[in-house]
């Protein structure tokens, strides 16, 4: 009789641990996603400043600037879904990178301390977003492993947990960032 109770108790404890583990992994994924969100917000907050600084010098790069202003308006609307935010960020990265390359043609801008600070903060935020995306992918992988493998898959079925997709790495994330490539200097 005692043996049966012990076995039941052990099974119950194992069950609780597996259940909690699954919930923990799911929360980690949500948490990691909100980390991306925070980093994106940080990046979008830089935009007004960037636009103001660049506007003074880069009169002739109208197209790029207009694009950035448009994207900034989108981020400021506050109605973007997380996926849209990531998409806007992708476009921003390309556009701002194009702008940074053209800085070569504007010696005054290149010499501006304000701009230099913005430039390094921008790259910093880019690296942080890349890190947050990698953290998210690691959390998703760990969650997917947990819900697909035995015995986690039994609980996952009951909880209706489904596998999630990892974020695809962009070409930029895969290659090493170097000051030379970025700023052409």
């Amino acid at each position: 009789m005692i043996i049966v109770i012990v076995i039941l108790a052990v099974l119950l404890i194992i069950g609780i641990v597996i259940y909690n583990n699954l919930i923990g992994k799911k929360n980690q994924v949500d948490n990691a996603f909100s980390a991306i969100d925070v980093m994106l917000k940080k990046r979008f907050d830089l935009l007004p400043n960037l636009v103001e600084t660049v506007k003074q010098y880069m009169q002739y790069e109208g197209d790029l600037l207009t694009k950035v202003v448009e994207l900034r308006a989108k981020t400021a609307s506050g109605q973007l879904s997380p996926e849209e935010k990531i998409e806007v960020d992708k476009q921003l990265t390309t556009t701002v990178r194009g702008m940074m390359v053209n800085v070569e043609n504007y010696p005054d801008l290149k010499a501006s301390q304000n701009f230099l600070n913005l430039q390094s903060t921008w790259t910093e935020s880019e690296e942080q977003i890349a890190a947050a995306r990698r953290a998210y992918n690691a959390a998703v992988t760990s969650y997917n492993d947990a819900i697909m493998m035995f015995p986690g898959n039994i609980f996952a079925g009951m909880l209706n947990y489904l596998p999630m997709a990892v974020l695809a790495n962009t070409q930029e994330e895969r290659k090493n960032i170097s000051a030379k490539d970025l700023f052409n200097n």
Partner: protein
Amino acid sequence: MSIPQSMFDTSLQSTLNDLEAQRKVVYNLKVKSFSIIGGGILLIGIGAFLGTLILHFGIAGAVALLFGFISYSKADTSFNEYRHEFKQKVISTALKSIDQSLTFDYENGLREGEFIFSQLFKQKPDRYSSQDQVFGSAGKTRFSFSEVHAEYKTETRTKNGGRQEHWHTIFKGIVFYADFNKHFNGITVVRPKDFGSAIGAWFAEKIPLFSSSGDELVKLENPDFEKLFVTYSSDQVEARYILTPAMMERLCQLDSKSKYTISVSFIDNQMYIAFPLDKDYFEPPLYKSLLDQKSIGEDLDVIRFMYGIVQELDLNTRIWGKQ
């Protein structure tokens, strides 16, 4: 900026010639004192063997021993002078030949508090010594390295109720630290993946409740890196901000140049790296000629290697807001 090798050679050569003469004096003194001590032991041995003349031989032997020990302590004093001269002149010149900014403090090393603070090793040391500290900068990055020997103690009870102390090495080798090129707030530690840490990491991943410290296991994407190291951090995102794919590759490369697996920690905007080593560096030879390039060559290789880390890990690229 570095001095051409030929210039370094001529300035070093005359110093080495002077020191070589000093080395010979110390060497002769040591040999002399060992011979006298040996002679004394022999005399006592003969006395004991012959039996009849034990008093005569005993006294003669004891006098020889006393004389031998005095002479040995003299030799020791001159060896310390020689060692001092070697470190001050030869090692300092060697450092300047690599970069003018490098300075050498052979009496001091990494403070024990900082060694513990670096979190490179979990075990707290009970006995700690550190010396031969080198300071300098390579480009924009300030760095330092020193020889460290840290041990911990265990006690066992002997059969008759006494206690016996056992000393175990936590780490022996060189600890390098440098100003890291990115800002961060948390703690990230990269330790060699041995059997114990692999089991610890398995538990930390499967059952987070069993994680020993507040730091979480960080699973990274680089399989070579994951095979070599176990990473813990107080912040998953920050750990990846520091350990970018490029940085992981560079750390693997750096590790492949070290005989034993390195440990790395990132804390308080500094990066610490521990290189376990078998031998002491920056020590003068006594029984071999100083003019034999090999011994100093090894010291120079270590200095160049440490100096090269900044370049190798690309710590001078400062595009992330930290100047």
